[in-house]
């Protein structure tokens, strides 16, 4: 019985997990802030405390995410694509497509029956295709990100954005507010716009079912529903979608190097 750690430093949130072999034991999530190195340390400390372990109990740690370089105590780095694929295969071995809605980008990954990545695409260049669009509009609406889902779910007539750009979308949302449109309808409009961008991303690598969704964006269940409507498919949803890449990193940490069939990027 051995303990492993996976740490995923994203642009908005830092996530970490400890697994016992391939089983998730504890997880911890914090805002990344400006100092990724410090965030990584906090995650490690908190995880060890939660699991009631010491640092020496951790056999191996793997880092991923855009800030992976800051996890100086990790034995290894792995790409977020590979980690997300590993993490989702651990939860849903049947998944053939994964949609990862993160703050910086949305990624769509295709997996084969062994859970190995066969293709992927990402929306890296544009905030309107990532969870950031939601953060931007939540800021304009002066609502907490955690309230976004609840508000959007209450909408009766979601607005349609005339723009595909998050910056212009911000101005458009301000105009709509001044016109008296409800926060609910604006929030639902954002989900609708994002769902449409995400579904065209999915179509680029072709949807193969079953399809799972993860990343912080999956916490927004109205967004998940909007994507399901757009794709006309049910999505598998992990109980903690935000830590999937961290989980995958821990699983890679637990896999002896010789049997790691996935390439590092």
């Amino acid at each position, binding site marked *: 019985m051995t303990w492993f750690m996976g740490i995923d430093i994203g*642009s908005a949130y830092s996530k970490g997990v400890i697994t016992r072999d391939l089983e998730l034991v504890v997880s911890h999530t914090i805002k990344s802030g*400006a100092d990724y190195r410090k965030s990584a340390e906090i995650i490690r400390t908190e995880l060890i405390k939660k699991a009631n372990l010491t640092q020496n109990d951790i056999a191996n740690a793997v880092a991923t995410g855009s800030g992976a370089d800051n996890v100086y105590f990790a034995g290894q780095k792995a790409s977020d694509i590979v980690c997300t694929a590993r993490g989702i295969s651990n939860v849903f071995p049947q998944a053939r497509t994964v949609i990862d809605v993160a703050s*910086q980008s949305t990624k769509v990954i295709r997996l084969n029956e062994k859970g190995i990545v066969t293709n992927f695409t990402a929306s890296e*260049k*544009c*905030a*309107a295709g990532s969870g*950031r669009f939601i953060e*931007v509009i939540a800021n304009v609406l002066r609502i907490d990100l955690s309230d976004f889902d609840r508000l959007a779910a209450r909408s009766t007539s979601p607005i349609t954005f005339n*723009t*595909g*750009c*998050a*910056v*212009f979308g911000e101005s458009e949302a301000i*105009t709509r507010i*001044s016109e008296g449109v409800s926060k609910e309808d604006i929030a639902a409009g954002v989900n609708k716009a994002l769902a449409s961008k995400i579904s065209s991303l999915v179509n680029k690598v072709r949807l193969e079912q079953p399809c799972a969704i993860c990343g912080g964006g999956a916490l927004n269940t109205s967004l998940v529903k909007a994507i399901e409507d757009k794709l006309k498919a049910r999505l598998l949803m992990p109980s903690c979608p935000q830590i999937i890449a961290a989980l995958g990193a821990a699983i890679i940490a637990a896999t002896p190097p010789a049997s790691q069939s996935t390439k590092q990027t």
Partner: protein
Amino acid sequence: MYFAGVDIGSTMTKVVLLDQAGNLVSFIKGPTGAEHRQLANDVMRQALEQASLQIDDISYIVATGYGRLNVPFADRQITELSCHARGVSNLFPNARTAIDIGGQDAKCMRINSGRLVNFVMNDKCAAGTGRFLEVTATTLGVKLEDMGDISLKSTKKIQISNLCTIFAQQEVVALLSRGEKLENILAGLHDALASRVAALARRLGIEPDLVLTGGVAKNIGMVEAMRQNLGCEIFVPEEPLLTGALGAAILAKETHMKAAGAGKALPATSRRLEKVTFFNQEYR
């Protein structure tokens, strides 16, 4: 006999008044608010006051810009592309290409004999418009009007790797915290925008002389970045915001003269300049 051009842009409203000979009588620039109609009135009133004229002294009014339909006292609406082309050729008769970078879009126009022959524009992505500089300047705590001068002190080329304005916002903060100098970051931002606009212009084909207009043309760092990216000389009008309104006023004069020459009915001179709102039934 006087003629007016009213250009309602996304951020600024501009009015130009011309006399019968086509000389500039007055011009006014004011911020565009949420209420275009009311603002158009205010700016028009100011322009008239400056020239000591009454609204009835104006023979023909052309409205242009994205808010052109919200000018209740205009006699005709003409797209900003045609007006820009006309205004630019009036100031630079040899101009064959005009690039207008505003707060909401970027337009590249090919001009022949004062007329618009072809154009391409970007109004889809903020990263290819002046908004890119507006947003990042705010993030850096730099006034938009100071960006150009500061950027000229740049000693090092910094590449802004993010295309999206929102991600670039994050990137400039990271660059600052890494100890990069403000002037170098600003120069990097100018180069990023200039390279995108240059790519847009190349789709159209560039023929000299090239004139740069719009609010972004007031930024000397951007003019320099455009020159480097396009590799040709760039002409900038003294008032780069006014070419649309100027073109509208010239087109107002031409329309009026043509109609008068053909003995056609001219627009009623009893225009009203009182305050109107979006909710005023009369103008629906």
